[in-house]
């Protein structure tokens, strides 16, 4: 039995065109990014790097500097905590506005669309606000606020408050919607107010997830506070930026070790808090 000749590989054309497209995009990309590995071996750059790396050891453990680090660490933790607290103040109300799980239209007697358009519009507006708040990275806010409020932790706290309220609000709204809706609906149907229905119907089921996410966000806030310090928003980041600018490797190493310890500490606290709920 002689089988017919098999058809050609249908994947050939798409694969070929994808490869050509990828190469066509790769070349300008390399040019735009000024891809130049030779620059890493440029004599001038190597000299600067060598000098900088030479100062890395020994790390700076002098008591004055350690005290500076301790203050900066406390400042970073405070920025993160205050920022999250403010973010919750703004995020929680927005989440309640934006979530569908407390909507009275779910239990409407009449399919009167006009009546519910107003509240629908409010919900979309809430979601829009949350999206806007999240849209700009917190470090950009930090840069702007440092210009407005001056160097220091206030810029960092506000930047966190603005962006994280958007993130917390969005995820809170989604968590509320993903919970079991029946207890809440039952309460709403028996005439309960919306906040009461939330507290008695929805919250017990989703509280664990809400706290878990909030604690995770606090961990991220600690890291973000350090980053924002680079543009002048106080804390450990500002200290590191100064040390790097002065090419003082010893100080950079100590700060980096502190940073690692702090991230581990935040990780640990987060773990414990999440276990408790």
């Amino acid at each position, binding site marked *: 039995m002689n089988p017919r000749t098999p058809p050609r590989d249908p994947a050939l054309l798409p694969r070929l065109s994808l490869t050509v497209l990828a190469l066509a995009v790769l070349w300008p*990309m390399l040019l*735009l*990014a000024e891809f130049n590995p030779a620059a890493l071996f440029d004599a001038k750059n190597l000299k600067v790097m060598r000098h900088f790396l030479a100062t890395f050891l020994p790390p700076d453990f002098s008591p004055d500097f350690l005290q500076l680090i301790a203050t900066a660490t406390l400042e970073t933790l*405070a920025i993160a905590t*205050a920022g999250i607290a403010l973010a919750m103040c703004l995020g929680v109300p927005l989440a309640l506005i934006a979530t569908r799980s407390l909507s009275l239209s779910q239990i409407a007697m009449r399919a009167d669309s006009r009546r519910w358009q107003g509240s629908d519009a409010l919900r979309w507006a809430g979601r829009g606000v949350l999206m806007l708040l999240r849209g*700009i990275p917190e470090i950009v806010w930090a840069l702007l606020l440092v*210009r407005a409020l001056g160097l220091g932790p*206030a810029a960092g706290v506000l930047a966190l408050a603005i962006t994280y309220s958007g993130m917390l609000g969005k995820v809170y709204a989604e968590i509320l919607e993903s919970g079991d809706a029946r207890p809440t609906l039952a309460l709403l149907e028996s005439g309960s107010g919306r906040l009461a229905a939330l507290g008695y119907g929805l919250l017990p089921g989703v509280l664990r997830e809400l706290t878990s996410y909030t604690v995770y966000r606090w961990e991220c806030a600690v890291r973000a506070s350090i980053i924002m310090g680079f543009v002048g928003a106080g804390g450990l980041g500002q200290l590191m930026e100064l040390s790097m600018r002065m090419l003082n490797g010893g100080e950079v190493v100590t700060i980096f070790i502190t940073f690692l310890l702090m991230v581990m500490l935040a990780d640990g606290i987060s773990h414990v808090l999440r276990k*408790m709920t």
Partner: protein
Amino acid sequence: MKQNMPPRPRYCLTCAATLCALMVAVIGSFWYLSLEVGGLFTAASLRHIAQFVGSFFPADFSHAHTAKIWQGALETLAISALGTLLAVIVGMLLALPASGRAGRIAKSLTRFLLNFLRSVPELVWATLMVLAAGLGPFAGTLALALHTSGVLGRLFAETLENTPTAAAAALADSGAVATTAFFYGTLPQVLPQLLAYSLYRWEMNIRMAAVLGFVGAGGLGQMLYFSLSLFQMPQACTVILAMLFLVAVVDGSSAWLRKLLA
């Protein structure tokens, strides 16, 4: 006849203690930073803020400035894309030993390296790379590549560890070498997940790439930094709008690519 009521439930001491500790932490933070939230809302400071916000509008849409922004946006896009691409390659190479395919010592060493790469924030890498390779977008690309390699390398290693080995083992049993068994047996199973992680990281990286310019690593970030330093607010506003637009483009492309390759 009086009925015996069940005993009252025990008071959760740890819960109360934790709540107290949290409240102390929050209030303490505000006190430590000497932040008076009320001070933000006085008439004078509100006026100051309103003035500050107003100085951004109308945004500068002049031809010359828009041309520069277009260049900056393309540069930022290139930084994020190239940085992510390099990270995918390096991450994959490091993930192989990190998933235990080359022995326990190699696994520990590579895992340590990957953890180090991802612990250092992108901005710190960028400052270092500006020293090593000079100002400009190349430093930004390297910084993203280094940090993201750590992140993707760990994610890839975990995916590899969780893949069933039956397919690759069967090929090895019929005489294929380890490399070939990997490409024919393991890679087809993990490719969708790897692509999903990489595209997600690209979405994160475009936001980061925009910001690395603050320390001199090129792109829109560098433009924003200069505009703000010179107090050219309308120009800064256009840059921020461009950043938002770029993020939306990348998010959209990533979603489209994900659907295409699924």
